[in-house]
């Protein structure tokens, strides 16, 4: 791998976001994505009418802000770079829906927008994700970055394993910068991630199922 690519990847990772698995599938593909961490639990179920678009439901229960967001999310694969040994992606995400406080307070309109980029070979993975959100009481801008290394290269259908570190930046939070070492397991249509956020002493468990 050319050193400049590795340097670019490390630089991206150093910027410090949740970096979800790819939010756009193949034409006609469905995907379920679930994320759980100390701050929130979310479910994104989407359908891809084309290889560059997906639309679906996004529901998030935010334990930090004591509220639930329920709405629609649109994802656009703005650009993909397919190379012989690597793939890079640039995504745009947009969501809108209702924000319901846990205490039964008034429902508000909420929205978010995000940009995500990733680049990977079969050995190295880097990603960066920035998201701006207006969920009523929660108006924030957050960043996340990941660096992953695969200790071995697996073939299609075999178990793929990645060791990753995720760095997140939530400027408004008590812990603005958090680090989460995690393991990613990938086999066929199922991807599972398990990690532990050091500063918040919280576990992370994400999964994605594509069909």
């Amino acid at each position, binding site marked *: 791998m050319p050193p400049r690519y590795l340097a670019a990847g490390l630089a991206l990772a150093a910027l410090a976001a949740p970096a979800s*698995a*790819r939010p*756009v*599938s*193949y*034409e*006609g*593909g469905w995907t379920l994505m679930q994320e759980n961490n100390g701050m929130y639990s979310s479910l994104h179920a989407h359908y891809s009418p*084309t*290889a*560059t678009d997906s639309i679906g439901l996004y529901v998030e229960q935010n334990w930090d802000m004591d509220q639930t967001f329920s709405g629609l999310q649109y994802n656009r*694969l703005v650009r*993909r*770079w*397919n*190379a*012989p*040994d*690597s*793939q890079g992606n640039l995504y745009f995400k947009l969501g809108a829906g209702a924000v319901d406080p846990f205490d039964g307070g008034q429902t508000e309109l909420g929205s978010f927008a995000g940009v995500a980029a990733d680049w*990977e*070979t*079969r050995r190295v993975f880097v990603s960066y994700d920035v998201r701006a959100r207006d969920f009523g009481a929660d108006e924030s801008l957050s960043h996340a970055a990941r660096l992953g290394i695969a200790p071995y*290269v697996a*073939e*299609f*259908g075999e178990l*793929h394993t990645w060791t990753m570190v995720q760095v997140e930046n939530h400027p408004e939070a008590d812990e603005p910068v958090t680090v989460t070492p995690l393991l990613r397991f*990938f*086999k*066929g*249509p199922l*991807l599972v991630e398990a990690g532990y956020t050091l500063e918040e002493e919280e576990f992370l468990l994400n999964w994605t199922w*594509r069909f």
Partner: protein
Amino acid sequence: MKLLKPLVLAAALSLAPLAALASPETSAMAEPAPGEILMANVNGLVCDFCAQSIRKIVGRNEAVQKVHVDLSKGQVRVDLKPGKSLDDAALEKLIRKAGYSLVSVDRTVAK
């Protein structure tokens, strides 16, 4: 004479398959002609989601019998059904629908 009719009938029935074997229609029972095999070099194949996308999209085509993805070589092997064809432009379109880039295609016929 009472026994003769059933005997003739039984003989005729037992010989019927032999007659069928000798008829021109027997070619339909022979081994079908082997299908073409396409070896496609594809850019961007780095993970199981990539391989799954290719298999789903290419496998849906009516000419395709089997799809195998080799991540290490960046190759997709497409076995066509006997008598079916898939030109390069059609394969390129399928690969693109899956989200990847076709680089080249080599064609052989299965033995």
